[in-house]
């Protein structure tokens, strides 16, 4: 049996991917650092990591939906809706403790996610269509709940600002939250039955039926989690940028998808890891930050985002084709004996 050599080869490839991301990170850092030395300052890194932290855990939620073979396009709108709702509640009740606001935002997100999950799981509507529709609906609701009055800097209470600014054990709250969510998600996805069922379902939906995996429940679960993380992210977002507007986190779904794809999550489902997504987010965060530092205008930023997604997908296609070819060549079809 050659399975050991398959394994070592596979491991090698996986390693190469993470190594690849690492190399790209270094190259980008050097280039940008040469152009603009501000890049290497602690303040810039803190800024960037704070941005990447929110992106990281929302991308982890996104990853779960992509692993099932679906997608959640509504995350950006959920961030905005949760952020706006919480912002307004805070403006009207400045005495409310921030913890309550965080909980409220998370519950709003969870609600949005459950609606997505019910439509996809029970209603059997395609995830792309479902979340494309709810993306617009939730975005529309942002304007409705705000009655076109944005939450502005003056509305933000001191305690609320502290959510993003504060530290736990010397680590910034946002990074701490991302870290905890990453660890819990890793544990959930790799060490519980439900977590493994998510991978199995995304790998082969028909076979999942054969082992009694309930597709409705899996779908509701992943979209609910994705929505919940986006809702939580919405609160942190407003605390970080000090405003909530109709266009908050507009196009954010693209960033989460990009982080996943860069991190090796297969758009065909069944493959993806928390660690990969963290690396993907880090690289993506650095690139976004660099574009700003180099002084590239916003619409170019979008193009660059799209370009990165494209490169990552092509890279994956080439890689998986090569793996399949290698396996074919090693396969024991012609038995010598």
């Amino acid at each position, binding site marked *: 049996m050659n*399975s050991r050599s398959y394994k070592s080869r596979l491991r090698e490839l996986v390693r190469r991917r993470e190594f690849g991301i690492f190399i790209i990170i270094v190259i980008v850092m050097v280039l940008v650092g040469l152009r603009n030395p501000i890049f290497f300052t602690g303040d810039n890194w803190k800024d960037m990591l704070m941005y990447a932290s929110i992106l990281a855990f929302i991308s982890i939620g996104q990853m779960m939906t992509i692993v099932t073979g679906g997608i959640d396009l509504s995350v950006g709108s959920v961030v905005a809706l949760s952020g706006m709702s919480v912002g307004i509640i805070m403006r009207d009740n400045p005495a409310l403790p921030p913890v309550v606001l965080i909980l409220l935002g998370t519950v709003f997100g969870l609600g949005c996610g459950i609606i997505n999950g019910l439509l996809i799981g029970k209603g059997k509507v395609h995830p792309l269509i479902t979340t494309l529709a709810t993306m617009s609906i939730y975005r529309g609701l942002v304007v409705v709940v705000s009655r076109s009055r944005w939450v502005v800097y003056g509305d933000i209470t001191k305690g609320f600002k502290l959510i993003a600014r504060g530290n736990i054990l010397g680590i910034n709250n946002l990074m701490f939250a991302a870290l905890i969510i990453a660890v819990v998600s890793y544990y959930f996805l790799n060490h519980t039955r439900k977590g493994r069922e998510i991978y199995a379902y995304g790998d082969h939906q028909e076979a999942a039926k054969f082992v009694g995996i309930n597709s409705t429940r899996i779908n509701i679960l992943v979209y609910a989690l994705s929505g919940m993380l986006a809702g939580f992210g919405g609160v942190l977002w407003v605390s970080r940028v000090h405003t909530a507007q109709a266009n908050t986190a507009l196009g954010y779904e693209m960033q989460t998808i990009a982080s996943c794809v860069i991190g090796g999550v297969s758009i065909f489902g069944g493959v993806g890891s928390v660690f990969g997504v963290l690396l993907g987010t880090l690289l993506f965060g650095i690139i976004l930050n660099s574009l700003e530092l180099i002084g590239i205008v916003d619409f170019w930023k979008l193009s660059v985002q799209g370009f990165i997604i494209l490169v990552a997908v092509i890279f994956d296609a080439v890689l998986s084709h090569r793996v399949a070819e290698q396996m074919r060549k090693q396969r024991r079809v012609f038995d010598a004996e």
Partner: protein
Amino acid sequence: MEHLLTLERITKIFTGTLALSDVDFDLRQGEIHALVGENGAGKSTLIKIITGIYQPDGGQMTLEGRRVVFPDARASYDHGIAAIYQEASLFEDLSIAENIYMGHQEIRPVTRNIRWGALYRKAGEFIKSLEVNLNPRALVKSLSIAEKQLVEIIKALSADAKILIMDEPTASLTKEEIDYLFRIARKLREEGTGIIFISHRLEEVFDIADRVTVIRDGKKVGTVPKDKLKVEELVRMMVGKDLKTLYPKEEVEIGEPVLRIENLSRHGEFDKVSFELKKGEILGMAGLVGAGRTEVARTIFGVENPEGGRIFLEGKQVRIENPRQAMELGIAYLSESRGEYGLVLQLDITQNITIPILKRFSRFGWINRTDERDTAKRFYDLLDIRATGIQQKVGSLSGGNQQKVSLAKWLAANAKILILDEPTKGIDIATKAAVHKLMSDLAGEGKAILMISSEIPEIIGMSDRIIVMNEGRLVSEITRREATQEIVLTAALGEKGK
């Protein structure tokens, strides 16, 4: 003997069609009960009802004297029913061990996390106890087809079930592996397990079964103890009519070779395959699933490129790099899965027939609809496609009629060489006979046909000549006169010393 499982008047309806109608079935403790019938007769549907994947629309199930209803596959598993499915039901990106225990992994009591160490150890020990050599940590996608089939079997056996269902478990196994599987099945029978066995190979049914139940067109034809059953009788029960009309092959004058394959190879798929296909000839290509037949066909059609060997068309060497070139050279390929890439299901019959030849009807980019319709109508009539008209959507046609539309498409495109991959898989018997008649007529008109089929009676009934593949090699060539079921099967199984 005690009754383990009894099904009474089971009925199942799929969007208007009656897949099963009032089917009774019973399984005793310690017996191997074979379930036979043509493709599409309803065997797999019945199995999926027993395993809880489908829910019956009528009738009831009794397990060990108690009425049961299975809302999903896990419920039947919890009642001690395990199954080896015919189609691959494994998770490719997960390890062997995870595939075996998916859904019932051992977990720690409080934290509820999976005990990975125990999982791999248990899987390893179980695999070893079956005297199989597989690494439980290996990813399923790294395995060969036969190894995957073994994993399916191991997975079902690990359930330690009271009832074991084997839905064509032997389709892609080698002879030794089949013997091995049968040894296990007999041992389980002795221990009191009830086994439902589905196979297209009647000799296997006679070899291993205690009783045989025949299903045809969703209805039960009868249940007979094996000792009181003869092959001819069983076939008549299955097919419901005389075999001759099913294979209306006419003698045709065979012409010059049009296609010659020399030492065609693709590593891991097939090795040094050589054969000739002549004008007017139906060349049957037999072999087990996974023997490399489809891969050879796809390579000739340019879907994959050969790594060795040469292809000659009418004596001239050609390079076929993509399907488009193959089409231009007059080669057509009807894939096994029509729905997937043979036809555009949302388009109507006309549009499907004329896709490859639209150029013919268009001037300056405008399609002349009248010409297009006339051409489609001609082939529609020629192939006797049964539909409401040429404007009917292909997706709403029956399997056999879809197959005819694919044929019409290629005939309209003037294909000279037709490669038909499992041309009658999953279509009903009457249409099957019609497709066979059509093949015979096409050969009569001088087309050269390479027919891949896993149904040996079809191979024997329709071919002028038979080539047999086994594990990527062409192992035998048999003339129509000398072909028997046994000779073809023996070659396909690749028994040692032959």
